[in-house]
């Protein structure tokens, strides 16, 4: 927490520029929901914010264990921010396991709020504590608030239990709302919006709504009346661009981007997918929006999902599938078919830790090589990647533009961090979104002296015609066997195969001719060190560069949205710096590609912890490569 006013009158508000708070508890404790509500309250207070949910792959790991700890981190600020924050200022630990797992991350001098009711001998043991950390000195560096959260909740809801509106267990379950109320008081957050939200969430069970609201208010009042809390804090509104905002997660933004692409392309949206973490929420969101004409198909497996999408694309839909690495692996053969049949469709890969099942709920950028090269034969296709949760919306629209213009399958890369994290989003005006209907035409007439040749191309884009079943005179057959130039008949001719292979590469390469110039961030204009990144590392890289500049180190930054084809002006740019650093949440996939392409000695920084980069960590790495021992 960086504060401007320090020794104020007790129980007065201390103004902060920003704060990082982490809620941690058992996966059944409702920490994700608590974090979501605190995020919504902070957004309404006008803060810029970024979130980082982190939960176990197990739906309900054994209660009280380290494996079962679920957490939600929120960074909120009165300034423009780009990351969910490195070390939390405040840790809310609902049990010993949560404390054990997260105390290490807390800033020195940070605040810990403990649910003392959960600090039983058994829970301490399950968390791996030999001694109670409250009494063995391990918390001396922190400001500790011991709050009997469970007991306070039960007492607040005594009447509800007596009236038989809920049992003791049900009452206990409201303890996350008591914690939320207390933290809301600490940070001067209004809770009325959460009250309204609870009323509507539990509309069918008014007694549950009332119990939760009571617990929420009890938490707030506890903060207000207890002398234990000397300060409370306020983070004022951030100077965001004028306009209307909402919070959005990456998965929501992909879903909205798909609907927007369907509306702007004037094509029906067909979405075929198989449930997989962390991509399933896209299916859930789209399944709610059928009044946009969206058809959702939960297929029997990943292969059927993309199969259905190829069928729908042949029929003239804007057809989309999404998955994560293991599912993309299964879709590989069909993606090759989409390359060969030259149909426009989107494949979204919400990356998670690998290999194999890997880390289903954690983030990683390790599927870049998979989507670029993971097909048999020469099967190039365009790849775009999102930089932030809200950028998932724009990137999805861009992918649809490329797919429709060039009649090609396009991969959209997101990741577990973007998928579940939220940030404020300045709502675009629909009329300002790209008019995708102008990017393509559906073919209705023969194109070769009264005949129809399905592989006769547009000279500029090299796109083949999109002739839909139902159109008389354009009957044609497509498939995975090599096609003859123009006619599209099966061909085993050697020269034809070479020509078709070159053509498939050239069609992808030409996409780069239509891309805007790269935007380089270099406020001084004198940087000799360039940081190049892609995907969700954008925020941490941006924050790290800002830190370095504050320390007088001039560093430039460029973010790559298009990974295939790479922008035409990239080579020249990379060659013009003394040092180029490429941080990635993988073992150096993009940096290897860039080195091969440009012969520039790119310095890669690689970490795969399942978590996004911390900006401090990145700043140190960049400094080391740019000015330190590795320079």
């Amino acid at each position, binding site marked *: 927490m960086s504060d401007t006013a320090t020794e104020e009158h007790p129980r007065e508000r201390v103004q902060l520029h920003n704060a990082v708070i982490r809620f941690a508890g058992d996966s059944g404790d409702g920490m994700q929901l608590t974090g979501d509500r605190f995020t919504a309250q902070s957004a309404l207070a006008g803060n810029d914010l970024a979130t980082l949910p982190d939960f176990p792959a197990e739906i309900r790991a054994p209660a009280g264990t380290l494996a079962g700890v679920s957490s939600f981190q929120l960074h909120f600020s009165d300034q423009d921010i780009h990351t969910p924050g490195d070390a939390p200022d405040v840790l809310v630990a609902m049990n010993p396991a949560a404390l054990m797992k997260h105390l290490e991350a807390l800033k020195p001098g940070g605040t810990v709020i403990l649910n003392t009711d959960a600090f039983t001998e058994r829970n301490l043991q399950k968390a791996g504590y030999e001694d109670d950390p409250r009494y063995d000195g391990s918390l001396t560096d922190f400001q500790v608030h011991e709050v009997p959260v469970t007991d306070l909740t039960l007492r607040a809801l005594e009447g509800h239990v007596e009236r038989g509106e809920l049992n003791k267990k049900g009452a206990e379950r409201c303890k996350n709302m008591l914690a939320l109320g207390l933290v809301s008081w600490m940070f001067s957050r209004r809770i009325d919006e959460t009250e309204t939200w609870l009323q509507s969430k539990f509309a069918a069970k008014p007694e549950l709504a009332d119990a939760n609201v009571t617990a929420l208010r009890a938490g707030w009042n506890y903060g207000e009346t207890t002398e234990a809390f000397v300060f409370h804090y306020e983070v004022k509104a951030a100077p965001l661009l004028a306009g209307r905002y909402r919070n959005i997660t990456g998965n929501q933004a992909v879903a909205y981007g798909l609907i927007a692409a369907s509306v702007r392309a004037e094509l029906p949206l067909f979405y075929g997918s198989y449930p997989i973490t962390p991509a399933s929420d896209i299916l859930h969101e789209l399944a709610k929006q059928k009044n946009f004409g*969206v058809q959702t198909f939960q297929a029997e497996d990943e292969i059927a999902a993309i199969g259905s999408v190829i069928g729908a694309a042949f029929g003239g839909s804007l057809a989309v599938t999404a998955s994560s690495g293991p599912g993309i692996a299964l879709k590989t053969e069909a993606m090759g078919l989409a390359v060969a049949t030259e149909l426009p469709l989107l494949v979204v890969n919400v990356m998670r830790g690998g290999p194999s099942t890997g880390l289903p709920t954690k983030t990683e950028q390790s599927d870049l090589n998979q989507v670029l090269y993971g097909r048999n034969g020469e099967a190039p296709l365009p790849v775009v990647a999102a930089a932030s949760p809200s950028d998932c919306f724009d990137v999805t629209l861009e992918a649809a533009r490329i797919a429709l213009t060039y009649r090609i399958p396009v991969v959209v890369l997101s990741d577990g961090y973007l998928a579940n994290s939220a940030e404020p989003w300045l709502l675009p005006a629909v009329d300002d979104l790209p008019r995708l209907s102008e990017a393509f035409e559906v073919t209705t007439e023969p194109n070769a002296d009264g005949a129809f040749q399905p592989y006769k191309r547009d000279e500029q884009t090299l796109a083949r015609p999109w002739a839909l079943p139902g159109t008389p005179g354009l009957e044609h057959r497509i498939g995975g066997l090599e096609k003859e130039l123009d006619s599209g008949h099966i061909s085993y001719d050697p020269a034809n195969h070479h020509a078709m292979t070159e053509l498939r590469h050239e069609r992808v390469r030409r996409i780069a001719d239509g891309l805007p110039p790269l935007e380089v961030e270099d406020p001084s204009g004198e940087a000799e060190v360039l940081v190049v990144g892609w995907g969700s590392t954008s925020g941490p890289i941006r924050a790290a560069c800002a830190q370095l500049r504050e320390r007088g180190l001039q560093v430039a930054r460029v973010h790559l949205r298009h990974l295939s084809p790479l922008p035409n002006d990239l080579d020249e740019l990379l060659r013009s710096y003394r040092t180029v650093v490429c941080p990635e949440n993988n073992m150096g996939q993009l940096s290897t590609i860039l080195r091969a392409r440009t012969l520039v000695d790119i310095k890669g920084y690689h970490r795969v912890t399942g978590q996004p980069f911390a900006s401090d960590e990145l700043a140190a790495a960049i400094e080391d490569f740019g000015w330190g021992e590795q320079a």
Partner: protein
Amino acid sequence: MTTNEGKLTKKDFTSDREVRWCPGCGDYAILATVQSLLPEMGARPESTVFVSGIGCSSRFPYYMDTYGIHSIHGRAPALATGLAISRPDLDVWVVTGDGDGLSIGGNHLMHALRRNVNLKILLFNNEIYGLTKGQYSPTSPLGSTHKSTPLGSLDRPINPVSLALGVEATYVARSIDTDRQHLSEVLRRAYQHRGSAFVEIYQNCNIFNDGAFAALKDKDRKDHNQIRLESGEPITFGPDNERAVVAEPDGSMSIVPTEEAGDRVVIHDPAREEPTTAFALSRLALNPVGPTPIGIFRDVDRPVYDDLVREQVEQSRAQQGDGDLQALLASGNVWDVG
């Protein structure tokens, strides 16, 4: 299904591509039957799509002057499902084989059938892998010897009709490549059926598995072995109807001399809601080496999957109104700055 005003002929459904199956292959007969039948039933080339996977049978779309996709191994039902859901105006056919449809693509076949997607699925069963030159397939008889199983196949075969009935396919039939009249009738009914129609066609591979269906095709044997199913008729067969299919107390069926059958003889009713009787009938022959039922096992009406998908879209529109993108983007909590 498409209705047709103009008069079309077989020629309108025949592409200019040279047919490249081996001379004598059963596929030729099936192709000719389908090409003749479609115009007769009023189908339109532009509204017809053939989707196939990989294998000899899967070359079928190239020879039809309709729309078509020759896809990847086993996945044709998945592609066809996406097309059928998104394009209710089309007639979507799937052409597959015993390897494509029952081995690598068994999962997709099963799910298309249990959903009752509006697809006409033709499974050419030759009990062999032809395109890869003669390995045993999931329908090859137990103990049969082929390149990959010189000491005899250890795999118990799938009975495709039993499989289809097991997942409650709404139309299930079996016919024979060269029995043009029977095949035409079975396909005609398949075309008229709303929902998934599954037709197993015994198709002779004269190169790698010649004579697999001789029991049903040889002049002097077929009358003894073809159990021709006719709706509403007692199931009897043989040159003089001397044998009959009867129901056993345990639910299975067996074959007895007609004079011993009495009122135990099974009266065929493909419209019976319960698939159990049809299933028992399909168990009379694991492989068609003896008496084997052919014809329509099951033909029942059930809501069609792709119709239901579209109905949900229409219901959502009726209840919530047409989607408003600007309103969607601004849904939930919004706040204004400046």
